């Protein structure tokens, strides 16, 4: 999914990386604990988080996260924004809460990490969703 689409779907404010919105993310991950992000996130991901300190961006740099969406209207601190500019990581902010943000993106086709490694494949996913 293109970051431009993420911005539109979540009605995001772009904090840094205006020139990179035509780039794509392959998978989404929502977490407030960076230890969980490091354990589960896939490369080229979009991270949705409520953690706004510089560790959110350092974790993104380490785990090759393409862009971060800060949820619940939270804005990252200055150190986080400066590091993101230096490392070319796109930062977005939405007023939507975490659950709704993830749900909207998933509804528009942005998959989760478990689906990339054979967790819940399309063949199983469709009938499961139909029962909900």
């Amino acid at each position, binding site marked *: 999914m293109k970051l431009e689409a993420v911005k539109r779907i979540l009605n995001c404010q772009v904090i840094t990386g205006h020139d990179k919105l035509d780039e794509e993310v392959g998978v989404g991950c929502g977490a*407030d*604990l*960076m*230890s*969980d992000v*490091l*354990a589960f996130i896939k*490369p080229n991901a979009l991270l949705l*988080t409520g*953690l706004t*300190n*510089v*560790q*959110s961006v*350092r*974790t993104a*740099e*380490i*785990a*090759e996260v393409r862009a971060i969406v800060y949820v619940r209207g939270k804005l990252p601190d200055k*150190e986080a924004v400066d590091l993101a500019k230096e490392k070319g990581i796109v930062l977005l902010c939405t007023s939507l809460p975490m659950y709704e943000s993830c749900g909207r993106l998933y509804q528009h086709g942005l998959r989760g990490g478990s689906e990339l490694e054979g967790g819940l494949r399309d063949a199983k996913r469709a009938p499961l969703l139909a029962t909900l």
Partner: protein
Amino acid sequence: MPREPLFWQRFDICGRNFVDAGKASISIKGILREIGINPSLIRRAAIASYEAEMNVVLYATKGTMELRVTPKDIRVMVEDQGPGIPDIELAMREGYSTASDEIREMGFGAGMGLSNIKKNADAFSIHSAVGKGTTLEITFRL
């Protein structure tokens, strides 16, 4: 005689310094990229280093992280002066954590760190003495 490493560097890590926390691992990632290591291996090494570095920052007074690259492998050795781990088997269990609220506010302490280091490494060893500190040796084969 052990073979001379192709590259060697030691980083000092300061406990409770959240501003610089993670900088050594970002340097390691940059070094491995410059050497021309395979990108998926770089990612594994960077994640394991970062987890180990954060453990020193969050729990210890101070420590060092050493990167050694040889023609055969990449080794990251971490040594800290800290409280030590009384029960390593328990600490390795996913979800087990002794983190304070302050550590969780920083975004850490999910109880995934040590197990995630092991998951990303090709070989991993840990030794700890209560009241003295902990040492880790993390190896990635080339």
